[in-house]
């Protein structure tokens, strides 16, 4: 209920409504790509390659004559599904680890904290690259790499929330009434700790989209002909002198998506009034 009220407050102000509208539109593009896209993403037309934006191809064509707008619409599928799946895995795993570490303490907590602190000092891109080196390039590798790269953040955040909550009187009362550890963690502590973690997860999805695009740009993400925003720009670098739109439009798609996520996340933080809880990490 609180979440619904907060969502309504966030969407109620123009600062939250505009980015929310854009996000709904982008998600709709991803879901209904086959209906919305004017062309198929993989149909080549070599005589019409590197065409500038025109009436038939609103965003121009790429080096194989494929319609750029259709590829960007399908690319939203790749980027969003990879980022959302990776961050969801990361949030669930991070919450479980963080809750266990924060609640039980002891050697387990020390081990988790040591690993988290270790990965915390390294940039996500470096962690992702180490994991890609092990798993190998491709969409699946990208997804796992992103979810592990952000794991430390959610573990840390959940652990801090649980530490703050576990000495509350109601927790002690529940324990005295005979509730088990897992009942306390999953029924009492996590529901109270979940909001900041979910919002942090939403904000991280924006970063994950950029990370996915960067790995795609390096040629380590989605393999052709699967359209992905990063990989499209990578193939566009060879055409930078004659067809700059191949780079401009996918980049715009990323920038608009990420900025909308950040602005909406900001409105949500404001509506939920959790800025301090997010900062306490």
């Amino acid at each position, binding site marked *: 209920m609180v979440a619904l009220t907060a969502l309504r407050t966030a969407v109620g102000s123009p600062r939250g409504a505009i980015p929310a509208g854009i996000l709904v539109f982008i998600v709709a593009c991803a879901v209904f790509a086959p209906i919305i896209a004017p062309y198929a993403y993989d149909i080549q037309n070599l005589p019409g390659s590197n065409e500038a934006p025109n009436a038939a191809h609103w965003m121009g064509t790429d080096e194989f004559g494929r319609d750029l707008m259709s590829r960007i619409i399908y690319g939203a599928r790749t980027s969003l599904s990879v980022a959302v799946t990776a961050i969801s895995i990361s949030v669930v795993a991070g919450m479980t680890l963080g809750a266990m570490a924060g609640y039980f303490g002891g050697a387990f907590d020390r081990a988790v904290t040591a690993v988290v602190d270790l990965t915390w*000092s390294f940039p996500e*891109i470096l962690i992702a*690259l180490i994991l*890609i080196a092990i798993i190998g390039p491709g969409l699946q590798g990208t997804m796992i790499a992103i979810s592990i790269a952000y794991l430390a953040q959610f573990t840390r955040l959940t652990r801090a929330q649980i530490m703050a909550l576990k000495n509350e009187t109601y927790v002690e009362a529940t324990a005295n009434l005979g509730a088990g550890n897992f009942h306390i963690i999953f029924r009492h502590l996590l529901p109270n700790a979940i909001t900041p973690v979910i919002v942090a997860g939403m904000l991280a999805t924006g970063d994950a989209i950029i990370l996915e*695009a960067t790995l795609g740009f*390096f040629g380590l993400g989605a393999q052709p002909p699967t359209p992905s925003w990063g990989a499209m720009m990578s193939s566009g*670098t060879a055409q*930078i002198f004659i067809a700059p739109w191949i780079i401009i439009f996918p980049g715009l798609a990323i*920038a608009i998506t*990420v900025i909308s996520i950040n602005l909406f996340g900001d409105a949500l933080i404001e509506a939920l009034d959790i800025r301090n809880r997010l900062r306490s990490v």
Partner: protein
Amino acid sequence: MTSFFIKRLLLLIPVFLAVSMVIFAIVHLVPGDPIDNLLSVNSSPEQKAELVARYGLDKPLWQQYAIWLGKAVQGDLGDAIILKRPVADLIAMNLPHSLALGGFALIFSTVVGIAAGAFSAINKNGWIDRITMTMILLGSTVPSFWLGLLMIMLFAVQLGWFPVSGARSWDALVLPVLTIGLGGVALVARVTRVAMIETERRDFVMMLHAKGVPPRQIALRHVLRHALQPVITILSLRIGWILGGAVTVEFVFARPGLGSLLITALNQRDYPVVQGSLLMLAIAVMLGTLLGDVLQAVMDPRVRERIT
């Protein structure tokens, strides 16, 4: 101070060991025989035998790790499969380029970031502040490789002011430094602005105003100096991110450097090079963080005491 430095350095050893173990493990976690991952496809059985003898690949895993680490510490990181040269030579060739890029980007983000943040804070809520903050929001959310490509299009292709790629001359450094630096500028400026606005509310600032010190002097001499503390903290935490940005941007500008070396090696599955460049990048991040911590300790005695 010296004891702080030594203790901080000792703390790096377990981190270094953990990271090197992960990097060592890459070859063994990748599907297939580790020996095949370290040699080119058409190498003879004799070459395989030589490699096995050199790195003790027939010994238990922990002994292999000890041998690998021992050789790595002495500068022997194996031979590149594709380029057929010692990995250490490749790293020695590429490292100076990465250091120059990372160093300049760090200086640029610090200087411009503090200036922009201070300027914004002094002209708080004016239109200049709003524009600066909007630019900063854009700068921190736009993917850096796209920003790099846009700069290439505008300043190198259209205007022809700077070279498109490579690292043959000094002016080839301008666009890459700008690209990495803008993200850093955004971060530093935001922290500077918030810290200055918070400091302005403190009693000693009101006291200075009451004494009749000119506002500009208060802002620059007193408020800014106080505000630099959190800026240094955030910079020391984020040095790794600036170095990480260098990996991306080197690739975009086709500059030689550790990042380009790593990405190319990853695409070619040249594992000795992957291991060597990852190890060097990790060391760079650790030393960068150390530098930031030491800087903080120099500025603030409380930080020095925290570690003892």
